[in-house]
Each structure stands twice: as structure tokens, then as C-alpha cells.
């Protein structure tokens, strides 16, 4: 029987469109020593991206420029530098409305400048992927890592994932498209990482073969019409809802928003299948658990190692997706914990708030330690926080005044 499948055929660069499950789960992997920015480039090389739009802002500029090199090599359909993050995200929207697989990157103040676009992306059901290399956003100026922007992104209706390592990044860029382009999801993805810690450090990342790539995006699987005049234009409504101050108007807006959030929930099953769960746990039966996302998890691992040397057993919960929020998984994983330590790279402690809202006996949650504005989080301060919770005396760290 004749098939219209592109699987097994080649793109103009000679890459073979490969079944994503084969490519991600079965194909041989090559260990490579790369910066996070280079890893983004390598993932995009294999992601059959149609349009990438770039704008300089530290710490995502390098990745955005490297993808320009991919365009020059012919791996991407079109690429250009926009004029501001607000404009770039609108340009991304235009390209996605036109049926393209779209990729972009931003950070910190850029995320905030672009913010009006993100709920629009979600409401228009545009499966754009936006890498967010988090940095400080408030005055005085900081270009250093800080995850506060994620707390804004979490209310936009986008999928929000938080990578810990460059390996996460590599795999999740491609898996992200597979999840967000599902017809019952079809939402944008903010794929976040902690700027510099992930983008500017080198790590060993296991890459899939460079001659395999994802199948192209099929815009006709979208739950809303693609704006390319390839299907009959319908008259969308008798009168625009904004004209109507009546129940129909309010109900339409309300149900549309509910549908966006329902689509986030529906992404759960696809995400679990691709990422082997929304959380990862180690020693979840311990009395003390460190629960967080991003590189705070990495620092937590170090703290666990230090405490193990002293005979104190601490477990770990790594949260991979923030939208959908793995509330049930966290509830189950923390059910026996006496103390839940939530280290964060931001001043407000949004992660601790989310966790407190999800579990019984939320006074078990210890919101901290917090660092912000680009400060590093030495594992020792996590150790100290845990010892303090357990009533174990420890030498005060310089400057903390505790």
C-alpha cells in the first residue's frame, strides 16, 4: 500500500526523518563535551525547525547566534534578528499561525518585555517552543542567574518545563515539540533552565545521530485552523465577542481559558510517556526530602552527598514540569517526609508556595535556602538549613548571622 508518511525519507540536508520514539529511545548515542548553548544548537539541528527568530540578551545570545549558523548551513527554513522581545514573540506567533514549527530563545528582562505574547500564544494554540535561560529581572541591573521569571510564565497557559542539566535540555527540546504539537495539547512550551549554570558550562551530553531528525510539523493536526488559506475560510463568529456585554461573551472567554488549562492537563499523559514521569525521586522514604527544580536540584544532590558523609540520610525529588504541575506525584513522594526542604534561585520562593498548596501538613515545607541576583547556592547552606530543621547545631556560615 502506498504511504504518505515521511518517515524514512530524507530532508535537503540528507537527514532521515525518523520515528521520534526510535530516535529518542533506541538510536545510538554519542557522548559529547559541549556547553549548554552548543547543546541547544545540536538539538535544534535535529528538530526540523522551520523558523527561528533571534534577539540578543545575555545569557541566551550565544545559543540564538549558533542557531543562525544552522540556518546558514541550511538546517532551518528561515532565521532573522527581530527588533525586541515583544516583536520577536509576535513574529514567532505570525510564523506559527502560518503553520511553521517555530523556535526562539529569551531570558530575564526579555521574557518580561515579551510577556503580553505568551498568553496570546496559548490562547491561539500555537505550539511555539521558547527557551528561557533565566536571569534576574529587577533593578538594579543583573545579568546573573535567577529563576523569578518562571513564576510569571507559570500563569500564562503555556507548558513550562525546567531543565536541570544540558542533557535534559537536549532531550526535552525534541520531546517538547512532540508533546506540544499533539492535537489534544497544541500549546506553546517555555523550556526553562538556569542561565549561565547550564548555558555557559560544559558537560557530557549523549547526542542522537546527526543524520536523524524529527518528522516535520503538520499544521493540519492543529485543533484550530492554520492561517494559510489552504482550507476554506470560515466566518468565525456573527459578531466579535468583544462587542457583546452578555452571558455568551463571558461564557466563551471563560470556556476558552478553561480549555487552555485543560489542554495543559491533557499534556500530562504524553509528557509522562516521553520523560518517564513528571518528577524523579531518590530515597523518597527518607525523613528529610529536598524538593526543587533546575540547578537547585544539582546543588541538592551535593548537599545529600555531604550529609551522607555525616550519616544523615536525605532524599530528593526533582520536579521536571511546572505546567503541568505534578501535584499528585509530589503529594505521593512526600507523604512520609517530616521535613521538605525547597532550595530556590529566587527571592520570592514560588516553588515552595506551589508545593505548600499541593500537600497536606504544609508546615513541613521549609522555604529555603533562597539565593537570588546571581548568587551561587553552595551545598553547605542547604546542609545548614537541613541541620537547622533537625535541631543539629552547625557552625554558622560567614555573613548569614544565624
Amino acid at each position, binding site marked *: 500500500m502506498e504511504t504518505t508518511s515521511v518517515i524514512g525519507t530524507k530532508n535537503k540536508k540528507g537527514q532521515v526523518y525518523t520515528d521520534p520514539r526510535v530516535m529518542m529511545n533506541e538510536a545510538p548515542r554519542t557522548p559529547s563535551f559541549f556547553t549548554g548553548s552548543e547543546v541547544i544548537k545540536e538539538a535544534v539541528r535535529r528538530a526540523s525547525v522551520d523558523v527561528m527568530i533571534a534577539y540578543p540578551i545575555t545569557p541566551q545570545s550565544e545559543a540564538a547566534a549558533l542557531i543562525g549558523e544552522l540556518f546558514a548551513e541550511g538546517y532551518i527554513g528561515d532565521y532573522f534578528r527581530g527588533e525586541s522581545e515583544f516583536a520577536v514573540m509576535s*513574529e514567532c506567533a505570525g*510564523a506559527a499561525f502560518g503553520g511553521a514549527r517555530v523556535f526562539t530563545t529569551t531570558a530575564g528582562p526579555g521574557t518580561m518585555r515579551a510577556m503580553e505574547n505568551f498568553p496570546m500564544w496559548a490562547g491561539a494554540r500555537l505550539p511555539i517552543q521558547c527557551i528561557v535561560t533565566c536571569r534576574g529581572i529587577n533593578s538594579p541591573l543583573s545579568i546573573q542567574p535567577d529563576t523569578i521569571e518562571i513564576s510569571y510564565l507559570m500563569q500564562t497557559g503555556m507548558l513550562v518545563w525546567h531543565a536541570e542539566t544540558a542533557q535534559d535540555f537536549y532531550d526535552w527540546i525534541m520531546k517538547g515539540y512532540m508533546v506540544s504539537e499533539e492535537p489534544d495539547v497544541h500549546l506553546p512550551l517555555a523550556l526553562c533552565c538556569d542561565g549561565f549554570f547550564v548555558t555557559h558550562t560544559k558537560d557530557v551530553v549523549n547526542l542522537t545521530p546527526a543524520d536523524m531528525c524529527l518528522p516535520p510539523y503538520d499544521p493540519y493536526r492543529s485543533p484550530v485552523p492554520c492561517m494559510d488559506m489552504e482550507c476554506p475560510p470560515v*466566518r468565525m463568529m456573527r459578531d*466579535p465577542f468583544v462587542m457583546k456585554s452578555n452571558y455568551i461573551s463571558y461564557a466563551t472567554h471563560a470556556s476558552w481559558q478553561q480549555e487552555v488549562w485543560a489542554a495543559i492537563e491533557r499534556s500530562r499523559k504524553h509528557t509522562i510517556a516521553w520523560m518517564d514521569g513528571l518528577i524523579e525521586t531518590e530515597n523518597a522514604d527518607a525523613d528529610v526530602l529536598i524538593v526543587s527544580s533546575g540547578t537547585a536540584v544539582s546543588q541538592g544532590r551535593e548537599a545529600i552527598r555531604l550529609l551522607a558523609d555525616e550519616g544523615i540520610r536525605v532524599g530528593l525529588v526533582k520536579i521536571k514540569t511546572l505546567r503541568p504541575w505534578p501535584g499528585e506525584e509530589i503529594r505521593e513522594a512526600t507523604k512520609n517526609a517530616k521535613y521538605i526542604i525547597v532550595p530556590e534561585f529566587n527571592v520570592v520562593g514560588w516553588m515552595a508556595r506551589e508545593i505548600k498548596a499541593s500537600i497536606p501538613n504544609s508546615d513541613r515545607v521549609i522555604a529555603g535556602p533562597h539565593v537570588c541576583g546571581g548568587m551561587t547556592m553552595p551545598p553547605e547552606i542547604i546542609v545548614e538549613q537541613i541541620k537547622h530543621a533537625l535541631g543539629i547545631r552547625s557552625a554558622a556560615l560567614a555573613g548569614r548571622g544565624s
Partner: protein
Amino acid sequence: MSKERIKIAPEFFDIMPPEYQDLVTRATYGNESRGWKDIGTSKELIEEHSLCAGCPESMAFRYILASLPNPEDTVMVGSTGCTSLVFPHVAVHNIHSLFGNQNAVASGLKRALTVRFPGRIKDVVVLAGDGATVDIGLDMTLQAWFRQEKFTTICFDNELYANTGGQESGLMQKGFVAKMAPVGKTFEKVRLPEIARESGCHYVVNCTVSKPSLVEKVIKNAVYVAREIGPTYLQLYTPCILEIGKNSMEGLQEMRDSEKPTERFAYKEYISEPAKQLLAEIAAKEKERKAAAKQLTSQEA
């Protein structure tokens, strides 16, 4: 989109909405010589509108949609304002996303369509008000022109924010008293047509929509030039009769008064050299086509 795509299966024809049947049987998709004269004789690409009675914007919409040379492969981009109340009634794909980002959306859209449909014509036309084009969206308006994005920008200039109730805008005349300009606007009407020329637009026209034949001509030229050469800009006076204190039947006269040679909407055009050449070629081909058609008719007779 070819007309084949919108054909209705005969078995289902009678249960399709009459508007849709009309669109398939009587619209001018695919008719190369479509124009404003089709209005009233065939199905229009705008069904109704929710603008004020007598609003010149509604006339402009009808003329423009009748004049688009290639509506079956045209995608329009709008913005927030009175125009966004009309687009849901329009039978070409159109995008509304945010206020002022229309030229950014159109840039991404045009590039995506070029990547996805190599060798095929897909026209993109932006249609937005003066607040969207000149105030909140000016950056993106100009940057799209600097980048030589190949689409047409149409500004419905009603010299104020109409949809929010008549506030001052950059295209308002100096001295006009309006909301947010309580002692009269203190600076001159922004000279966007001149700025458009300097920003790289290849075809720029400033006029009113009092004459449908003129609207047809400038729309076609603007779309052809944008398709082949680079950005084009039309600034069309569509007075807000409500906010300047006119009655429903007075919009046309207001436009005629404002297009007199000394007035601010006197016809003004700028055409770049490559655009002149293109338009001359198109005119020559059109002449040839008409001559051939005439010959054919006389032979048949």
C-alpha cells in the same frame, strides 16, 4: 487555495449554510479581473460589519476586499481597534493577536508561508488603525520596512483612537481637542508617508477612500509591488464621523473635503524605480490581455 478546495460535495450542498453556498458559487476567488465593480453583483468577502452606520471604514473594507488581486491566497493581519470588530466577518484567513504587533506578526507569517509554499504566491496584507500603526506599533511598522519584508501595510487613518472613544493619536491634526488632548494636540500630525518612503517602502500612497476605483488601483499596485519587490504602505483616510461630530451620511463629503489639493489627504504617492518598472510591465501585460480579449470577442461576433 484553489477553488477546488472549497467545492461542496453535491450530497451535502443543500445542508450547507446559505452564506457558505454563496461563497462557493458566487464569490470572486480566482477571478483575475475582480474589482470594486463586482460589489453588488457577486458574493462579497465581507458579509456584514459591526461598525457604526455610515462609517467610512466599512466602505474601505468593502473596496479593499473586492480589490485584493488574489484573495484565495491572501492572509490578512489586523490589530486591536475598530478594524478588529470587522475581521471576524471576513472570508479570508485573518489574524488578530495583540495591539500594535501587526507588522511583526505579518513578518513571521510571510516568512513561514514562503518556507512552506515555495514557488507559490501567498500574499500578506496588514490592515490596522492609526493608533496601532503609528503609536503603539510604530517600532514594528518601521522595522518591518527596514527589513524589506514583502507585505503590504494599510493604515486606516481616522486621526484618533476611535474604538476606545476618541483619544488623541499621533496622526491627529495639531490643535484638535480630544480626550487626552484637553487643550488641543500640541504637535503636528506624524508624517508617516514620508517616513515610509525613507524607511524603504517601494510604493506609498496617501489618499481617502472616496473613490472606489482609486482604492482598487492602489490596493492592486501595493499588493503586486509587495509580492515582487518589497514593503508597501497605504494611508487611507477613514474619518471617524462619530468623534468629529458628523452624521452617518456625511462621511463621504468629509473625505472629499479632505482630499482637496491643499488639504492633508490630497493624493500623494511615492513609487521606487524598481516598483515603477514592475507596474509598467503589469500595465503592458494587462493592455495586451484586454486587446486579445477584444479581438476574440470581435472574431466570435
